[in-house]
């Protein structure tokens, strides 16, 4: 290295520019020289000077040029370097800022970019720059994000993308640069870039704001739509976009979400249909893809074709109707779907079968899905088998195993009837000491013989007698099921055909009896006989005699007069027979076909039974050895029969189910431990571990209502400040607060300005509560609506015997004539007229939101239990303790029923057009009477009111007086002719300090009475409705000469409230 070219002229030139330039040069010089040799290095240095001199801010670009150079020459070598520089120079002439970005990005980009594309890359950037400041900044942005792009997309795609950005930039630079960033983020994640860019290009021309949305949605599409179908998906979307479909991104998001619910083959089918549909209507495509998963849940892919084509035809005839069809918003679509689908959804027949079940049972049975019961985790676990808890019937959510809809429905009807049969024929009323009608009663004698003690329920007392409890329970179930079936078949002759065919089908599906060990085979035989298998049955040769006896015993209970006690007697005898049979394999040759139809059973000797049971007890469970006994397969249509659990639950709920013997008394106040023990003993539930037992036991207690109800409500409502009870008048301190007097009946005078009512708008929740309630009560709602609609036409009434009118009232006219002739002075009211009686009613509803409305409804309300601490802190703790931890509430609270009733009534009121307001009240102390507005009287009914109603929750105390006064004040402001005030409460008015000297309950009652009287005086008709069974006591005082009603059963409220409303306001 003798002659190093002199760089001093370069340095001198560079020193004319800011120091950063020279620094960049100095730093890069040695590395560049090392890479390309001193000669070329000089050229390199001089090129930089030239760059720097190209314009005002060109030195910045030159700085970046020097900085990037060492890496660039190492990557692409000097000859390519020259071309790179050329591109750069061209850019500097365009805009130094853009060139800076170009140089800066190069070291990262060039390793990936093919050398032949370097110039093209630069040109792409240049194409974005149009000489304005904004365009330069866009171009610079392009180079900044280039690295991520070239790493992941082909050059061709990059060109397309830049073309897109350019199109966008014609509209808005902000949008274009946003698109760049989006592209950087989204494109790498999307497989079908070309299609996406092509789609976006279409959008950029038509609805350019959608570009962003489509990019965002594209990544969702990649996650949802099958890889093989995505290309088609994008081109479909593009087609739709070209037709001018609005809101493409929403379409993409919805359709992607919808397709994600389908497996690949169905996605393909749906997409193919959608492509066809796109020729006709873009809107229909969106609707179709969106509803497809729902539709495919109900019908098969093949049936979809049928459904689709009908829709397509319809669409061609009537575009709007067609779209509604594909949205499933048309009756026609629904009907066709219904017809195509052979499955029966419980939800669709719940009302129908529910009423059917009610008719049969006569006890207010509700139908629910088994899933709901399993969810409660109170001992029932099956998600498929129908069952009953003695009150309600639980059915599978979907029945689809048979070919036609009619068959599936018949099957479900048989299943429902069987479960209801257990209720109708009193399976759960088993009384250990009750008399059997078809057998001699041996239970008591045997129990005495083995020294068995009565247990908590009659069923467990019975099962406790048997060492092989599971065997006894299985036999009992089969025999009882058989008894119920026999009763049903005798009573419901019309059901026989379906019932027998279900039984026949069940028989066919049973596992071969030959493969079972002897004891199990005998239980299986019992099942088959109960399913009306022909009585020539395959039986182990050794046990033909026992089989004959079993058949005869079963026949005894298959009689309409047999009771559940007969089942128990039969069980005792059958158990005696089967338990003595060892559970050994039976060789294939040792079976014979036996006639079981003729024999009578022989009464066993009590001594014998006792000895047998004692022997088994000594030997441990399976007395006779052999294999372990396994319970037989379920009989699906009979579902899950758990008499022991049902009696236990009933006992916990304090219902006297059937028997009245001494053991009943033990039931009251079962402890958790006792319940756990019973659960462990029972063979009706299988438990993994002890924790599970505890969980189920505590769930059962909750179900039975012996636990305090939890109350996870009231979020969003204010906590309460506190003020001393003594002291003088109060002033309204906040906006929307009002002061009212209170009546002191001892002083016989008002306490002036005593209570502050804080009016608040109730917290908004969801509207779903409203909709769900309407669905839940749809039958009742229809009824109410009809009743209410009938009110309107009555507004035109013929009024007779008027002094003037449209025409003569003939009766009156003739009478007048007669009077004339008889020389009596006639009545001149001889006309009639139709009078339009405008209904002009305003009504305010006041809902009790006191803490006691958190009570579970089965329990009824507990009056007089009000012993809440006076201090707010302690009070809140007390409330929380009552609430418990669980967030899901399996039972209904009083407030829930209040709310549901309001839903129905509000809907009904909308039908007749009465003005109404809905308010909730609660409070704590006289300075905090909370008054929640759910709907103002003059406020139109809207989603807002629905939302607010949703969040109505139990809060604090009940100071009725001020709340009534406030509501009355609101009513007084309206100009309606007739005004009503409905107070719906769950107990007597109570509040801290709502008494004299804190003791006299009478004070609250008297103040409330006075408030009601005041309302009456301002021409408002008040009415009190309470669900407190003891309500007569104080209501007589409170509202005696006004109107009131005590509802003995809160569940009646949704029905009763609208009735009352109609009755009172007419």
């Amino acid at each position, binding site marked *: 290295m003798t002659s190093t070219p002199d760089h001093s002229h370069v340095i001198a030139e560079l020193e004319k520019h800011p120091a950063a330039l020279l620094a960049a040069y100095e730093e890069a010089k040695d590395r560049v020289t090392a890479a390309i040799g001193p000669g070329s290095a000089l050229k390199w240095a001089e090129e930089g000077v030239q760059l720097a001199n190209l314009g005002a801010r060109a030195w910045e670009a030159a700085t970046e040029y020097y900085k990037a150079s060492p890496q660039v020459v190492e990557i692409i070598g000097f000859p390519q370097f020259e071309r790179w520089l050329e591109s750069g120079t061209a850019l500097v002439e365009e805009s130094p800022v853009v060139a800076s970005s170009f140089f800066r990005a190069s070291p990262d980009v060039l390793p990936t970019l093919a050398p032949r594309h370097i110039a093209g890359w630069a040109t792409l950037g240049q194409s974005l720059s149009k000489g304005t400041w904004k365009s330069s900044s866009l171009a610079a942005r392009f180079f900044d994000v280039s690295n991520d792009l070239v790493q992941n997309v082909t050059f061709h795609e990059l060109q397309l993308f830049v073309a897109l950005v350019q199109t966008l930039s014609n509209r808005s630079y902000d949008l274009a640069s946003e698109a760049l960033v989006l592209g950087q983020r989204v494109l790498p994640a999307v497989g079908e870039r070309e299609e996406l860019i092509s789609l976006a290009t279409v959008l950029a021309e038509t609805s350019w704001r959608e570009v962003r949305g489509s990019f965002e949605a594209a990544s969702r599409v990649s996650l949802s739509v099958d890889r093989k179908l995505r290309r088609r998906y994008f081109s479909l979307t593009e087609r739709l976009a070209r037709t001018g479909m609005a809101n493409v991104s929403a379409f993409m998001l919805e359709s992607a979400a919808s397709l994600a619910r389908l497996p690949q083959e169905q996605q393909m089918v749906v997409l193919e249909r959608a492509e066809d549909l796109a020729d006709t209507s873009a809107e229909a495509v969106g609707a179709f893809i969106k509803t497809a998963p729902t539709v495919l849940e109900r019908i098969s892919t093949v049936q979809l074709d049928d459904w689709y084509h009908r829709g397509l035809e319809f669409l061609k005839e009537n575009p709007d109707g067609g779209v509604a069809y594909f949205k499933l918003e048309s009756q026609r679509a629904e009907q066709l779907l219904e017809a195509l689908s052979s499955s029966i959804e419980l939800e669709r027949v719940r*009302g*129908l*079968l*529910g*009423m*059917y079940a*009610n*008719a*049969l*049972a*006569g006890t*207010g049975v509700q139908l629910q899905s088994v899933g709901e019961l399993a969810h409660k985790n109170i001992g029932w676990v099956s998600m498929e088998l129908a069952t009953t808890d003695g009150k309600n019937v639980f059915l599978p959510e979907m029945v689809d195993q048979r070919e036609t809809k009619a068959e599936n429905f018949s099957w479900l*009807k048989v299943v429902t*009837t069987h479960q209801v049969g257990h209720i109708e024929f009193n399976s759960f009323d088993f009384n250990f000491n009750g008399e059997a009608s078809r057998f001699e009663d041996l239970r008591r004698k045997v129990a005495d013989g083995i020294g068995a003690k009565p247990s908590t329920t009659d069923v467990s007392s019975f099962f406790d007698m048997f060492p092989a409890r599971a065997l006894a329970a299985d036999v009992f179930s089969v025999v009882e099921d058989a008894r119920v079936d026999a009763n049903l078949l005798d*009573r*419901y*002759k*019309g*059901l*026989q*055909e379906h019932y027998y065919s279900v039984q026949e089908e069940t028989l066919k599906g049973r596992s071969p009896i030959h493969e079972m060990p002897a004891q199990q085979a005998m239980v299986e035989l019992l099942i088959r006989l109960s399913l009306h298998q022909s009585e020539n049955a395959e039986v182990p040769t050794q046990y033909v005699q026992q089989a004959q006896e079993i058949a005869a015993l079963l026949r005894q209970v298959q009689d309409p007069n047999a009771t559940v006690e007969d089942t128990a007697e039969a069980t005792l005898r059958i158990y005696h027979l089967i338990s003595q049979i060892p559970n050994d394999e039976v060789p294939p040759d040792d079976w014979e076909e036996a006639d079981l139809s003729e024999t009578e059973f022989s009464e066993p000797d009590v001594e014998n039974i006792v000895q047998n049971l004692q022997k088994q007890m000594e030997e441990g469970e399976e007395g006779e050895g052999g294999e372990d006994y396994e319970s037989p397969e379920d009989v699906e249509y009979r579902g899950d029969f758990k008499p022991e659990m049902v009696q236990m639950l009933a006992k916990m709920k304090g219902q006297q189910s059937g028997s009245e013997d001494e053991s009943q008394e033990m039931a009251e106040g079962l402890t958790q431990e006792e319940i756990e023990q019973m659960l462990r003993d029972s063979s009706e539930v299988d438990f993994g571990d002890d924790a599970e037992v505890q969980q189920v036991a505590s769930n059962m207690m909750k179900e039975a209502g012996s636990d305090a109800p939890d109350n996870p409500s009231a979020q969003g409502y204010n906590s309460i400040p506190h003020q001393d009870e003594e002291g003088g008048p109060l002033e309204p301190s906040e906006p929307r607060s009002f002061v009212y007097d209170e009546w002191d009946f001892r002083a016989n005078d008002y306490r002036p300005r005593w209570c502050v009512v804080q009016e608040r708008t109730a917290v908004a929740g969801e509207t779903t509560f409203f909709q769900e309630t309407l669905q839940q009560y749809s*039958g*009742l709602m*229809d*009824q109410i609506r009809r009743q209410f609609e009938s009110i309107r036409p009555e507004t035109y009434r013929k009024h007779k015997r008027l002094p003037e009118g449209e025409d003569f009232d003939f009766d009156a006219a*003739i*009478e007048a*004539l*007669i009077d004339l*002739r*008889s020389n009596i002075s006639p009545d001149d009211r001889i006309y009639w007229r139709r009078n339009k009686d405008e209904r002009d009613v305003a009504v305010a509803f006041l809902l009790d939101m006191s803490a006691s409305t958190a009570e579970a409804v089965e329990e009824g309300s507990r009056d007089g239990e009000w012993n809440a601490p006076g201090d707010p802190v302690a009070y809140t703790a007390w409330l929380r303790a009552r609430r418990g931890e669980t967030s899901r509430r399996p039972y209904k609270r009083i407030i829930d029923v209040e709310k549901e009733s309001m839903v129905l009534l509000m809907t009904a009121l909308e039908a007749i057009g009465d003005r109404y307001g809905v308010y909730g009240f609660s409070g704590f102390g006289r300075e905090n009477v909370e008054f929640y507005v759910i709907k103002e009287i003059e406020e139109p009914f809207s989603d807002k009111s629905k939302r607010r109603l949703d969040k109505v929750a139990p809060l604090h105390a009940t100071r009725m007086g001020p709340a009534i006064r406030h509501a009355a004040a609101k009513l007084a402001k309206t100009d309606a002719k007739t005004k009503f005030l409905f107070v719906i409460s769950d107990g007597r008015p109570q509040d801290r300090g709502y008494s004299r000297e804190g003791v006299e309950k009478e004070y609250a009652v008297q103040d409330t009475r006075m408030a009601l009287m005041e309302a009456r005086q301002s021409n408002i008709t008040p009415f009190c409705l309470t669900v407190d069974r003891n309500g007569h006591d104080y209501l007589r005082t409170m509202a005696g000469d006004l109107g009131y009603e005590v509802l003995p059963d809160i569940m009646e409220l949704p*029905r009763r409230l609208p009735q009352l409303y109609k*009755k*009172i306001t*007419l």
Partner: protein
Amino acid sequence: MTEQTYQRHNIEEYVVDSEPFYLPVADEVALFEAAYAERIPILLKGPTGTGKTRFVEYMSWRVNQDRVKAGNPLSSLVTVACHEDLTASDLIGRYLLEPSGTRWIDGPLTRAVKHGGICYLDEVIEARKDTTVLIHPLADHRRLLHIEKLGEVIEAHPNFLMVISYNPGYQNALKDLKHSTRQRFVAIEFDFPPRDLEGPIIEHESGCNRETAQQLALLGEKIRNLIGQGLQEGASTRLLIYAGKLIERGVAPRRACEVAIVWGLTDDHEIQKSVMEVVTSIFA
């Protein structure tokens, strides 16, 4: 020449002369007889189709049996079905217009009072309020009928008895019996007969076979379980009898129940379907 194919009676001369079929459910016959002996007015309460009218006919026949033996004149039965336009003069009587003046004609109540019949006011709450003015003095110790237009007061014949009926099912604030009215009557409650009694009634009245009658009674019982759950009123015995008659005439049982019971019961399509499921369970 037309042949008279109907029987014509003056209101006060209509007597139930052959024994109507009536199966007592409880002690209502004894109660009626005791009240009749003391001439205490009687209120029959109960839903439609529970046999109130039939019961009155039966009792009217029954109280005449002693008179038949003794050869005394028989007591008639005057039935008035009340409706909302029924006025006091419809019961008492009115002047009729004649070319040369007017002529008074007694109403059914006046006739019963004069001739000592049983006056049965069916569905009395339907009648206009002014009728209570008539009922009150007749239904207490006075047993007087005031005829204002004639300026007369009539003392009731010793055999006269007032029987009224009402159906508490229609309850409405406006349509309720006043306490002052109620408290002049002894009340006998009617309800649907239990299944084992209703079966024979249906069998007798419709002439269908025993099994069908029992099935119809079962259907009646099951349908009545739905009162208050979509049904305002249960299927009356009358409807069950109609169904029995249709079946006896050869109509398929399911169809007979559909037209005679289900459709008569309600117009609600959903409830009809549910009730039809009960029908198809009971009848093959």
